[in-house]
């Protein structure tokens, strides 16, 4: 029973985004909320009917058929169809009666989802809201799940989504691919949002492992969507997909907590997903076309080296060099910390300690964790001091107990 519920949930999640995209592409983004309502009603009816009679042989076809009926019914009942939509459609095409019905062909689903991806990742919407909207509309996540991923509450998320949808209307954002000459720039924004979704899954503060994994998988799915079209299938798209494959390959090996580089050493490589690693290598290979080296290229290569468990000098020198390059295009404290760890592995403790002391990221508990690691076994007193500072700054109980273990191990 539990299992059935789980598979139903997955089906709904997948089909939600497809149906909302198709219905919105037909009636316009200004009616996106109606599309959401219609699809929710379809699922409600499915849950009821299937609960009584069992699942039909082809559940998706059933969902699409009911969605068609409900869409037409809804728009007719509310006269929106006659007053607003039909004239609009008629002005676009002559045969209004024929096209005023959602088309759930594979091709149209794919096209609509891609258009929706570009619409949601429109720079007119605040980036946090873009992520929320992407999770809801493109990934079919529930409001409570989004709230959990952001460590926020339902009310805040609802408001954020509401404002984002209002922006879709006021900015008159259309469901269409940007014109040829704008697509490269707009694609950057789309890739960035997908990247943030993926990091949300990888580094999210929520302890809900299933949710985190879902986030990673959905980000990967959106990325793969972009590879189906020539204009969006660029080397940087492939680089981002490679990065996400490498990340996803380690989901099962990661434990709770977000201790990045330190956690990595404790991973059980038998749990790494070799199939995803192979996929990652494939996309990394494809990403090498052309001369552009995006930050996704650099991060994907770092993730690639991390998929080789064996510690060699070559590996860490490469990782260090990639982090150096990444810092030059994209500074962030966590990249600086990871770079210093790579420096320790490649060039030794002394050099890393000197560099680490210069970073002065004094509000960051990962900084003190790194210093503690660097001093460990060399000056345990200092190591303990740094771990204690990290303990005081840590934000979650899981992190604190992990740090306590480190302090205890020094004794």
């Amino acid at each position, binding site marked *: 029973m539990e299992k059935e519920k789980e598979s139903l949930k997955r089906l709904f999640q997948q089909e939600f985004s497809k149906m909302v995209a198709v219905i919105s592409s037909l009636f316009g983004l200004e009616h996106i909320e109606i599309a959401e309502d219609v699809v929710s009603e379809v699922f409600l009816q499915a849950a009821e009917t299937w609960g009584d009679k069992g699942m039909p042989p082809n559940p998706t076809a059933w969902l699409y058929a009911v969605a068609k009926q409900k869409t037409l019914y809804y728009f007719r009942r509310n006269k929106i169809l006659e007053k607003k939509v039909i004239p609009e459609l008629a002005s676009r095409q002559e045969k209004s009666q024929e096209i005023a019905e959602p088309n759930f062909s594979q091709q149209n689903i794919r096209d609509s989802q891609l258009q929706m991806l570009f619409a949601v990742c429109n720079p007119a919407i605040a980036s946090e809201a873009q992520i929320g909207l992407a999770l809801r509309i493109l990934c079919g996540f529930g409001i409570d799940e989004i709230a959990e991923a952001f460590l926020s509450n339902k009310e805040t998320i609802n408001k954020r989504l509401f404002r984002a949808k209002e922006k879709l209307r006021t900015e008159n954002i259309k469901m269409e691919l940007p014109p040829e000459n704008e697509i490269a720039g707009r694609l950057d924004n789309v890739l960035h949002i997908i990247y943030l979704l993926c990091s949300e899954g990888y580094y999210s503060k929520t302890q809900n492992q299933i949710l985190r994994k879902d986030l990673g998988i959905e980000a990967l799915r959106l990325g793969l969507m972009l590879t189906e079209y020539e204009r969006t299938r660029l080397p940087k798209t492939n680089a981002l997909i490679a990065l996400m494959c490498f990340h996803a390959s380690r989901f099962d090996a990661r434990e709770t907590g977000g201790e990045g580089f330190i956690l990595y050493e404790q991973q059980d490589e038998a749990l790494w997903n070799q199939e995803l690693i192979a996929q990652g290598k494939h996309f990394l290979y494809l990403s090498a076309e052309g001369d552009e080296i995006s930050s996704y290229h650099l991060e994907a290569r770092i993730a690639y080296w991390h998929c080789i468990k064996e510690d060699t000098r070559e590996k860490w020198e490469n990782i*260090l060099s990639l982090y150096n390059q990444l810092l030059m295009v994209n500074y962030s404290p966590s990249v600086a910390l990871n770079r210093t760890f790579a420096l320790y592995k490649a060039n030794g403790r002394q050099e890393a300690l000197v560099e680490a002391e210069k970073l002065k990221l004094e509000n960051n508990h990962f900084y003190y964790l790194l210093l503690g690691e660097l001093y460990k076994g060399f000056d345990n007193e200092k190591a303990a001091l740094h771990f204690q500072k990290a303990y005081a700054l840590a934000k979650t109980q899981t992190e604190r107990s992990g740090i306590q273990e480190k302090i205890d191990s020094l004794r």
Partner: protein
Amino acid sequence: MLLFRFPQGNFEPGNIPPAEFQALAKKWQDWAGGIAAQGRLASNGNRLALEGKVLKPGGVITDGPFVEIREMLGSFIIVKADSLEEATTLAHGCPALDTNGSVEIRPVMK
């Protein structure tokens, strides 16, 4: 702005075995990476090629611009620092110093 100068001929092709050149390149990258890790790298600058021309008064053009100067300009980067002293501190450890070169530290006028 940090300007790196080198004694002429130091980097002429053939003067340095490839392995050593690679090690030197790594040193440079690690050093600049250290500045970037502190969030202080404003621009990674450009490396200047070895060849060049010099135009002198009277329309005299010479190859190899550097005959009369002991050191040639090799490259530059721009760092973020609150004072000239701070920028000078950042310049410490620069690999140019290991190869008899020098670092000239100059504020960029706004």
